[in-house]
């Protein structure tokens, strides 16, 4: 297939204007001896019907989506209203670049402005940026930002932060004067306040805590914020399951200084892990150290309201090495989908969705923990995920479930060696009662 729009005649005329006789001459600035003199070794080109067939065939070698799945752990299956697909597929949204020219990008810019407002409302923070890549790198950006603000070397991280987020933070700080210390969890699955109190000191720039945490437990953020404040450390709240914001007390209301998270739950399909949506919000005072693009309101030459990218003196294209971040492209289109999702669900829909997650997950948790040989591992309150311990071993249960078309929870041992035979289950509004009952029946059967 070719996507070129020049006719033979066009090419001839254009070469004549340039004053050369062949396309090859255009490349004379590449010295002959370093030019590639063979065809690239690639498969013969496919035309549209072949291409579709090719990908359908590759797709057939994926079968996970035909299972009844209880996997979550940073990637959540939620309902996506059709208007999200319909509106976000418009070429006017998919095919422009970053809105550098605001006069011809008002659509993109107003959507970003609305998105920033929606994120502020959900988190109860004062400002939000236009998006970051995904949750883990958003958490890492929050750590870098806190370090710029406070300058102290130590960052305390709850060890119930998503392990992949922890891993990305480690990668980002490796070559910087930042030291990461983990804070243990307690028997309820919450951040251990005693361990936290022991580890926090005057050298601490920030404490990072996820809620609901990786074990699915909703943290008591107020108490953590209080202790952080006492030591002048910034409090970074990470939200990996953004649907929880519909009903749980907002991080901002709990004393968060910076909120970073994953917005995949807002209208983005699982997509084998990406593209997702990093979001970030903070207090107004921190604006100069805030990373990423930001849209702001202004007026045009006739005094009408309009929107522009603003505060770009923080950014790499002006500040170069002194920028607050190297981010250039973000995830604008994912932010657009989130905006449509949130505007469609609205004030009531967001709450109802979150409420159903709590009810269904707790229903499943209650039923499953009634089974002999299954134990609720942590006693803290849960949103839509929970950890179960299987006395007789998780692999046996996992295998049996798979044979019966069910993907049970995620094995936790690879991330937390002490959680042998534990698995993390996720139940959302997408699971019907029948689905949950089937899981319960199968687990009961294999453990009988």
């Amino acid at each position, binding site marked *: 297939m070719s996507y070129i729009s020049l006719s033979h005649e066009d090419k001839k005329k254009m070469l004549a204007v340039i004053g050369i006789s062949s396309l090859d001459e255009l490349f004379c600035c590449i010295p002959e001896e370093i030019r590639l003199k063979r065809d690239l070794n690639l498969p013969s080109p496919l035309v549209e019907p072949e291409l579709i067939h090719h990908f359908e065939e590759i797709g057939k070698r994926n079968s996970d989506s035909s299972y009844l799945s209880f996997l979550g752990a940073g990637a959540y299956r939620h309902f996506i209203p059709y208007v999200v697909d319909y509106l976000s597929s418009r070429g006017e949204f998919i095919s422009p*670049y970053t809105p550098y020219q605001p006069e011809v990008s008002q659509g993109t810019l107003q959507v970003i402005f609305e998105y920033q407002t929606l994120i502020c409302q959900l988190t109860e923070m004062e400002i939000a940026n236009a998006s970051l890549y995904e949750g883990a790198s958003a958490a890492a950006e929050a750590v870098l930002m806190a370090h710029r603000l406070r300058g102290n070397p130590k960052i305390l991280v709850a060890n119930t932060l998503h392990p992949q987020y922890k891993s990305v933070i480690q990668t980002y700080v490796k*070559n910087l004067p930042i030291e990461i210390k983990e804070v243990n969890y307690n028997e309820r699955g919450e951040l251990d306040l005693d361990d936290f109190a022991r580890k926090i000191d005057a050298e601490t720039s920030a404490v990072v805590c996820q809620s609901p945490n990786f074990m699915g437990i909703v943290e008591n953020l107020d108490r953590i914020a209080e202790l952080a404040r006492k030591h002048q450390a910034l409090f970074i709240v990470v939200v990996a399951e953004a649907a929880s914001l519909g009903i749980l007390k907002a991080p901002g209301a709990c004393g968060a200084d910076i909120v970073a998270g994953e917005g995949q739950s807002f209208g983005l399909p*699982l997509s084998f892990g990406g593209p997702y949506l990093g979001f970030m919000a903070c207090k107004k005072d921190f604006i100069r150290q805030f990373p990423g693009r930001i849209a702001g309101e202004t007026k045009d030459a006739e005094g009408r309201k309009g929107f522009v990218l603003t505060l770009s003196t923080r950014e790499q294209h002006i500040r170069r090495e002194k920028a607050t971040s190297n981010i250039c492209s973000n995830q604008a289109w994912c932010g657009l989908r989130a905006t*449509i999702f949130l505007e469609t669900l*609205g*004030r009531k829909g967001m709450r109802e969705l979150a409420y159903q997650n709590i*009810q269904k997950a707790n229903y499943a948790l209650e039923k499953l923990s009634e089974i002999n040989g299954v134990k609720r591992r942590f006693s803290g309150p849960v949103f839509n995920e929970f950890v179960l311990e299987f006395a007789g071993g998780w692999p046996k249960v996992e295998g049996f479930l798979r044979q019966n078309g069910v993907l049970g929870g995620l094995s936790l041992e690879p991330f937390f060696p002490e959680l042998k035979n534990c698995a993390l289950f996720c139940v959302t509004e997408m699971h019907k009662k029948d689905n949950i009952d089937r899981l319960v029946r199968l687990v009961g059967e294999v453990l009988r």
Partner: protein
Amino acid sequence: MIREPLIFEISAEGKRAFDLPKLDVLEKKEFLNNLPLREDIKGFPQVSEIEVVRHLTRLSQTNFCIDTTFYPLGSCTMKYNPKVNEKVAQLGNFLHSHPHAPQDLVQGNLEVLKSIEDFLCEITGMEAFTLQPSAGAQGELVGMMLIHAYLADRGSPRKVVLVPDSAHGTNPSSAHICGYLAQEIKSNERGTIDLAGLIQQMTEDVAALMITNPNTLGVFESDILKIAEIVHAKGGLVYMDGANMNALVGKFRPGDMGVDVIHLNLHKTFSTPHGGGGPGAGPVGVKKHLIPYLPFPVVEKGPAGYVFNHNRPKSIGRVGSFYGNFLVIIKALAYILSLGAEGLRETAEIAVLNSNYLRKSLEGVYHLKYSTPTLHECVFSDKLQKEHGVKNIDIAKRLIDYGHHPPTMSFPLIVPGALMVEPTETESKKDLDLFIEAMKKIATEARETPEVVKSAPHTSYVRRLDETSAARNPVLRWEGDEEK
């Protein structure tokens, strides 16, 4: 034109656009015990479905985009985004696949990852790729981290990264975030890296040179072999910013010519749509000596199929939760498969033809600081128009009135008043001619009626926006009546 209000301004109690099925499990209030709950989401919109649809549709109509408009934004490679690639990325078995699913159930996904890695190696001459970086800038950062890890491992940690003065702003910024000191190297009168200067600055404290090739002027760094030799002789590495790879596909392989690390922008060279500013994808390719340091997990083909290898003791670690922007990667793979070797080479050839046609047609009308031959883009300036008080931004805004998206102006910093034009290969001669004609008219207007240019745009949805006051008095969210 009617101004589209903010969604919050049309929100009112009692309207809704969404319903969930009734809760089908036994509802228990006690499940809420011990949970810290919020009462409400203050200010959150309540609108009907048609209001959402009209709101977003109308907003979309105020955007210029590739599907409607010539978009010669230099260095951004705004080429046509083939629609079938969207379709294949939406196939259910990709779309609904969970990133934690057992590997044997996602062999198709792993095959996608492995095959595009292999193709990118063939296209660039590199020996391995990571697909984890979500954008070009993250790719740059990963590249810097790889170099850092490699040099530290050899007991030679260094402090400095050299960046040409013509580079994109992300280059020095990425080096800095990796803990390096970014040191500028000056361009010579051709607009390329000055070898004598490089020799002087290339000490044993320099970890790497970041080079963009062709550079942001569109000029090919034809001394690339010598440059690499100078850098390697002092134990440093060559990093290539592959943002401009569209000029080179099928013509030149950086991996054969001394480049140790490269990032590509799949949303530029490989046509995945830019989405109004992402999601992109910034895979990083390396030569053999850097493979151990790539982010984990790495996809490998084993006897029983594809596997993710997490056991990478020298790896720099993860840079994202999962495996990169997977659906973007699928679209790029679809693009490579539909073009093949010949089609890809043709994209480079026609991109360079289109660019040189524009250059030749506008030379003399607009000033060109460097007379060096260029490939896929060229950088004019406002030098001639400035005599009449007309600046690059005025020319850019006036182009909007003629129906074209403006060129890039924020860099390269070595060309004051830059107008960086990159037409890409997918534009027709007719559209190029319309742009040329508009640019010529604007040059005439700059002489005869400069006020018309300076007060442009005149026909857009909004007139010129005041960016200074937006930064001075930041209003970054709607703060209307939240109690409504």
